[in-house]
């Protein structure tokens, strides 16, 4: 990990020296032992802040639509797919973007770590090749990284960046044998009552902080339908029907665009199971349009295009 951090710093140094960037968006150590945090480097003297480890969990592509100029961005597999998606939707000035791709072994799930530590608090974390050594008051525990990855990382099919200008480290092996839709299939097997029950439970947890939306690289709308007052599509309170419709709308709006980066799930403070919405729709889009989001910059999201042979079985006479 130290080597990869060093390699990032060298690459960024070169970009600044060659005047290819004004701003680099990467990660630095966070304020808590288990956290890395997004950082904005504008000066070559600050590049030593940049780090890489298994806690660099945020999808930095979310910042691309909010910043202008010559930008360099550190991109994992999923971040790179989000960048491709944003390119497809003309949200990115590719000419002025340098993608510093980094093959990713998956990010560790803070909640899974919390669970395995029970109530013990981590004070210091050291990362080895495939494990985290966590120390606290009177304890030391070693956790295998592959056991504590986020669910979406466990079934990720694109750990290597799908697009990059600079590549850090060596490509990692892809997880070709995992079924990324296993969870969705299990959910589809449930009765409609059970599925509705799950949907209700998730809606009840939501506090409408919009962390999911704001962490999502594809939620770049100037005015979100949920904020619109003319017309007002949604009630503003946490009434169940409104939270449910909000999450449904968001899922549908990112249909064929969501790259399953997990940013929404991580951002949610209330543990709403947001992935089940999105993954189900991703599966439907895959089946109906043979489309995988964020792979080919030249392709268009299926719901942004029209073909005469598009699926139309939902139209009943």
């Amino acid at each position, binding site marked *: 990990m130290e080597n990869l951090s060093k390699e990032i710093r060298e690459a960024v140094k070169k970009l600044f020296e060659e005047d290819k960037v004004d701003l680099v968006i990467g990660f630095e150590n966070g*304020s808590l032992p288990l956290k890395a945090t997004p950082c904005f480097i504008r000066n070559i003297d600050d590049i030593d802040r940049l780090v890489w480890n298994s806690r660099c969990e945020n999808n930095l592509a979310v910042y691309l639509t909010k910043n202008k100029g010559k930008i360099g961005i550190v991109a994992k597999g999923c971040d790179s797919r989000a960048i491709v998606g944003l390119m497809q939707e003309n949200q990115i000035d590719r000419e002025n973007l340098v993608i510093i791709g980094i093959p990713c072994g998956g990010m560790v799930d803070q909640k899974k770590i919390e669970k395995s530590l029970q109530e013990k608090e981590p004070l210091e974390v050291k990362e080895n090749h495939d494990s985290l050594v966590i120390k606290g008051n009177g304890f030391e525990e070693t956790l295998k990284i592959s056991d504590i990855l986020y669910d979406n990382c466990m079934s990720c099919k694109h750990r290597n960046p799908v697009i990059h200008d600079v590549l850090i480290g060596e490509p990692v092996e892809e997880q070709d044998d995992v079924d990324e839709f296993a969870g969705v299939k299990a959910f589809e097997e449930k009765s409609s009552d059970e599925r509705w029950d799950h949907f209700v439970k998730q809606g009840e947890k939501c506090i409408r902080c919009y962390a999911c939306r704001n962490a999502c690289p594809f939620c770049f709308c100037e005015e979100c339908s949920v904020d619109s007052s003319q017309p007002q599509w949604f009630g*503003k309170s946490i009434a169940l029907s409104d939270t449910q419709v909000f999450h449904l709308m968001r899922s549908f709006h990112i249909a064929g665009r969501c790259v399953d980066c997990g940013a929404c799930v991580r951002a949610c*403070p*209330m*543990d709403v199971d947001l992935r089940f919405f999105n993954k189900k729709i991703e599966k439907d889009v895959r089946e109906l349009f043979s489309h995988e989001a964020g792979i080919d910059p030249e392709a268009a999201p299926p719901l942004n295009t029209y073909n005469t042979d598009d699926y139309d079985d939902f139209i009943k006479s």
Partner: protein
Amino acid sequence: MKEMIIKKDALMNLLTGRADDCQVFAPVEVEGSLVIKEIQPGDEITISSMNTKASIKETFFPQRERLFSYDLSKPGEMKEPPFSDRKRIVFGIRPCDAKSLTVFDCVFKGKDYPDPYYIDKRDNTIVIAVGCNEPSTTCFCSDTGAGPFSTDGADLLLVDLDGSYLVRVVTEKGESFVNENTAFTEAGQQQAETRDAIVDKATKAVHAQVNPDKVKKKLDDGFDSNVWDIIHEKCIGCGTCTYLCPTCHCFDIVDETTGTTGERLRIWDSCMYPFFTLHASGGNPRKTGKERMRQRVMHKFKYFVDNNEMVACTGCGRCVKYCPVNLDIREILKQIEVS
């Protein structure tokens, strides 16, 4: 301060036994998360070293609260919710959350416009807080004028002595609660000594991180400081910090109608949202994340201090722990301090 002793199981029995004649709110584990809720038969009160995810705010200032209901077919008629005299007990909150009630008192119990919805709940509630023997790394309560055993906002403050609680009697309301129940006995010298040791250890465990007085001095003429250009940069503008915060109290007023009947509601709102200050004419005094972040910090550490002589932050650390991008308020304040 008067101090009593009560066995833990005696207190739990007392609380669950009271559920008939009053509402009892306490931390309970629901789907792996610790939440404060009204205790129902079968619920197990859980006092853990972790704080609850959501604060006590919901219990006094609900996220969705009915101001009155109306019937569109009967113009001019409004029905207020019943202001009951039903007694409430809030048990097991931490001193940071109890302290937040003193912040709320400034807002909702002001002399100009006392808020009947808040006052009804506040005045009918006995707050029994439990001190923190093991503060967390995200805690900075000592910096904000409270501390792991602060009695501010509580009627009774409990110190966990393992099998029993030492009970510090803070207010008259607390005193009469103790007097009504025979399970409380006078604390002895030895228990007071144990209490001292625990308080001392915990207080030392909360490391000083920020100095609100110094921050205030910087903020007094820091509105145009360059620091605001930098610190909001990674903020994604969600409302997690404000909604989990025990002191954030901004709200919106909306109507929800179904058919011909409906309710006017007071619902939480957040200064982090761009539409919060958008004027109907299209103008917006807080257009970007920079202005909104400045407002949040200024409100807590300057404006509120100017108006109420206390910071609107209790150092509970929820915003530190749950911010999706680890934008740590302590780091922000440190940056301001050295700006």
